[in-house]
């Protein structure tokens, strides 16, 4: 009897360990939270955690879309620029067409640009790194043309009150992030589109030979990614009440870092939203914690760079270990 029980228990521990190995970023996150809780009295307060969640959520929403694209084995560098464009449209168009139509226009611009990125990548065979690098520059130019190099201001300030909706300590921005991440995790794990996204990133030839429509899946994922960038842009416009032409600059890099930090592979075929949530929150906690400790900005960058490399080394080490078995 006892032996049966122990094996049952050890099986549970085993699978928990396996889960942690495959989602090692959560170990990092727990470690970071522990360290900052000890070193700063302000860290583990409701107010601060609420802040961390909100601050992380913008990159987080971008990362949700990026995860979809990356599991396909592609990348989208234009998310920061797309975010800026949707912010500008959502604020700039309010006077002409009203608040909600302007928001909708912002969302549609993101979806359309994502669709365009996906279509060009899927049909031309040019690597998405190049396609979306072009898009990054082009869209940013478009934003400057539209805003005329100055920040656009929202006319009706009641618009910014939407950002102040909270559920307990959790802001609407953070809620949106978590809701989207959970929804797309479900898409990844339970829909045909989601699982075929993995199949494409894992072994594109096998997927092709099995008759999976690779182009369609890639276009859908780029469209999701563009839409996510627009969602983040809309939330940012509500929070700031202004649309800066430089909004979201280099956020594509932070987004990629968050996703990769989580453990989703750049080469495709492997990843999840759980990992991405872990990566996003680790990044947000590090930034917040280092600021609470009054770390100079350049030291903060150094620490974050080091953590990224360490996390990737750990990932490689664990991957080798499982392969050796």
């Amino acid at each position, binding site marked *: 009897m006892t032996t049966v029980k122990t094996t049952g228990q050890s099986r549970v521990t085993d699978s928990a360990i396996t889960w942690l190995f495959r989602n090692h970023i959560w170990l990092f996150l727990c470690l970071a939270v522990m360290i900052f809780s000890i070193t700063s009295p302000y860290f583990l307060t409701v107010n601060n955690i609420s802040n961390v969640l909100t601050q992380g959520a913008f990159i987080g929403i971008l990362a949700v879309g990026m995860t979809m694209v990356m599991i396909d084995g592609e990348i989208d560098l234009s998310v920061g620029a797309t975010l800026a464009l949707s912010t500008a449209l959502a604020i700039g168009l309010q006077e002409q067409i009203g608040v909600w139509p302007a928001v909708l226009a912002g969302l549609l611009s993101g979806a359309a640009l994502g669709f365009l990125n996906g279509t060009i990548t899927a049909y031309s065979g040019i690597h998405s790194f190049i396609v979306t690098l072009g898009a990054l520059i082009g869209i940013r130019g478009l934003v400057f043309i539209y805003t005329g190099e100055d920040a656009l201001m929202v006319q009706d300030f009641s618009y910014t009150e939407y950002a102040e909706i909270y559920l307990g300590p959790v802001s609407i921005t953070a809620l949106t992030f978590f809701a989207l991440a959970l929804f797309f995790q479900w898409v990844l794990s*339970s*829909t*045909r*589109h989601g*699982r*075929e996204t*993995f*199949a494409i990133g*894992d*072994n594109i*030839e*096998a*997927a*092709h*030979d*099995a*008759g*999976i429509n690779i182009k369609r899946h890639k276009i859908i994922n780029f469209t999701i990614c563009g839409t996510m960038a627009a969602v983040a842009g809309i939330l940012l416009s509500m929070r700031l009440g202004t649309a800066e032409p430089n909004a979201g600059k280099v956020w594509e890099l932070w987004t990629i870092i968050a996703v990769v930090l989580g453990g989703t592979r750049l080469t495709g*075929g*492997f990843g999840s939203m759980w990992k991405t949530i872990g990566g996003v929150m680790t990044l947000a906690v590090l930034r917040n914690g280092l600021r609470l400790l009054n770390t100079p900005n350049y030291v903060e960058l150094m620490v974050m760079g080091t953590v990224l490399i360490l996390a990737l080394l750990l990932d490689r080490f664990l991957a080798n270990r499982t392969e050796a078995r």
Partner: protein
Amino acid sequence: MTTQPPILTVNQVTKTFPGVVALDKVSFDIRRGEVHALVGENGAGKSTLMKVLAGLYKADAGEIIYKGQPVNITSPLDARHQGILLIHQELSLSPELSVAENIFLGAWPTNRIGILRKSRLNKDAQAALTALGADFGPNVRLGSLSIAKQQMVEIARANAFEANVVIFDEPTASLTDTEKDLLFATIRDLRDRGVGIVYISHKMDEIFELTDRITVLRDGQVQGTVQTADTDLGQITQMMIGRELEKFFHRAKSTLGAEVLRVENLANARHFRDVSLSVRQGEVLGLYGLVGAGRSELVETIFGVRSMDAGEIFWHGQPTGRLTPRKATDLGIALVPENRKEQGLVLGQGGRANISLPHPGMFSRATIMSISAELRVFENYKNRLDIKTTGPEQVLSDLSGGNQQKFVLAKWLCAEPKLIILDEPTRGIDIGSKSAIHELIAGLAENGLAVIVISSEMPEVLGVSHRILAMSDGRMVGEFSGDEMTEKNLIEAVSHRTPAAPILA
């Protein structure tokens, strides 16, 4: 066994590639419930034929009749839909997906809005796995299974799609004996359920164990189809060879000198064991064997790239101990690897930079490269090896395979080695350059170098060598010199049969 009508008939199929007729009016047929072997040497056209059947290539002429109707197979997907499935040497599966997802890849059951019906998927997969007697479940991640079990997943896929014809291309190449038995049981089971099976293999004992009929291909032509029960290894070998021997007369006319290298009881735990050989000045030693026999691993172990787990190496009679590539090079051993692109050359650079690449010390003073020294050596070898290039800076990717290969040789020869090991020196290059390389090998030996040539091409190894060692499954299975060097002896040696033991099928 009752004679069934053919389920698939290949009628006068021809396929040409630039400069080669890969298939020349090939006809053969597959019946329901038979295992039909397809044999032939490397380059005989087996793979091309299978790729035509699987929709990867389109035939230039001829027709394929399937279930009584002429068909046009346009893609692997189309072939699968029609019920023809090719199981490659390299499996085409997705390691990060589950077993069930792999079995039904591209045809997952969903509800109306695209949500996967996982329980249905797993149930169907479990049924397919149970039918095969698999001991793993549908939920396992594919990448965590052994190669043999992954192969079972491919076969389960064939069952799930109700394949009528399943083609196995060298399926046992990476299997252990027990795994092989399991595979054979599965294949027999498929056969008993009326599936027509094509079995491609180099291993004659497997063919005689498993198959009902044998079709022999040679140089793109069918040499004949025989009942396995009515034939023996001798006949099959005869059909496989048949060609006029000795198209190549480039054997070095050198006088053999002292022993240069001797290897005793060398072993590498994963690839070969108990291998002994020696080679003398002026001698060309051929190393024949099929892909996977352990030939490349053997020379890589001698050269110190792979770990040496047992045995001894002697250089001019002196034990060397464990070698590293650096030590081996210093002794005077040069290894010219098989894959020019991956291991031998930097294709984006010119000939000058490529020749000097492994010997920076020869061309530099205080780490600064001397371009004039490089140019001198470049001109020297360009003339000696008759390399067709516009100049020292022409990037090698613009050159033909034959000329690229000459640069690989130049690169190693300029260190003036005493022993040069050539791994598949003429793979993928045209006939003209081939004979130039053969001439070159003879020239090297006549100048007193010891040469080891690894080749899967029998005429090549027979044409250039003074002596041939045959390897199979990581062991030496024969040594031949003089009149014993015949295609028949080599085929029989690597097929695990001695000439004296006839096959009783």
